[in-house]
């Protein structure tokens, strides 16, 4: 079976990172050209997509963390499932943040600040809490899939598709965990 050539993180997010650089009005080192006007580039659709997905990943991460706080004494398999979801969405947030325009507001701050006011309540029963998160993972998978279809850059679409698949895995894993009574 042919294996696709390995792509570095920089290359994979290349389209989005380049877009971000253009948004910031960057020019190549040594270029004599004046800095590019930021205005039109600010509307690069991939940059807007990236910001939207970053915000939703951060919201979901906040929700996973809130669930872990609300249920600190879960059986090992359930707490491992939650910790796995936290690891995955942290990785997504970190990767997207690395590709976000440097002049955009930090979604980490804005999402965390707003989450205290608008956070979805965590169910008091552990099984219900895990099921609620599984539903949120399904929603996230669907919305990131939608973003992958809208992405202009193929490399960025590939990253988004992988994130959608990761959220689908988390949904299945959390749902299985919710049935674990040990």
């Amino acid at each position, binding site marked *: *079976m042919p294996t696709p050539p390995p792509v570095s993180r920089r290359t994979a997010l290349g389209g989005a990172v380049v877009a971000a650089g253009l948004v910031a009005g960057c020019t190549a080192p040594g270029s004599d050209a004046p800095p590019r006007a930021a205005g039109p580039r600010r509307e690069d659709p991939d940059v807007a997509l990236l910001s939207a997905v970053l915000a939703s990943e951060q919201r979901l991460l906040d929700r996973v963390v809130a669930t872990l706080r609300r249920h600190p004494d879960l059986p090992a398999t359930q707490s491992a499932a939650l910790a796995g979801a936290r690891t995955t969405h942290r990785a997504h947030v970190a990767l997207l943040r690395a590709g976000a325009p440097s002049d955009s507001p930090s979604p980490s701050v804005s999402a965390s600040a707003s989450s205290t006011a608008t956070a979805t309540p965590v169910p008091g029963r552990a099984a219900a809490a895990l099921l609620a998160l599984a539903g949120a993972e399904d929603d996230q*998978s669907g919305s990131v899939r939608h973003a992958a279809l809208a992405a202009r850059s193929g490399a960025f679409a590939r*990253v988004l*598709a992988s994130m959608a*698949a990761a959220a689908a*895995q988390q949904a299945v894993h959390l749902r299985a965990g919710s049935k674990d009574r040990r």
Partner: protein
Amino acid sequence: MTPLQALQQTLAGEHAALYVYGVLGARVPASAHPSLATRLVSAYTTHRARRDHLSGLVRAAGGRPVAAEVSYRVPNAARTVDELDTAALVIERRCASVYAAAVGSTSGADRGWAVDALTDCAVRQLSFGGSPSSFPGAGEL
């Protein structure tokens, strides 16, 4: 990579997956391990449908579908139940990578179909003993 090349590469990947699932399905002791047998049959059926769909996409794009090889290397000895599970997991991981690449090289409905196939491969990995990963099909991230 052109969209046609991406479709051909994905089709080649499905030829290999189907071959290996054929071997695995023939080796599973179905009466003793009905659950594994069912999962292998489900995977085979899904991959066969994708192979057929990809052949159609290649033709629609003006290409001649790449043919299957005579045989492929099975990922392990595939003698024990654990080995059968692991071999299936390896196949699903490879397919996830191939579909992730296809997502990057296609657009529109073909891309949407590739995203769904990638997601199915990722979820199917869990049924063969795999753990969730942060970037299915894009392990270098």
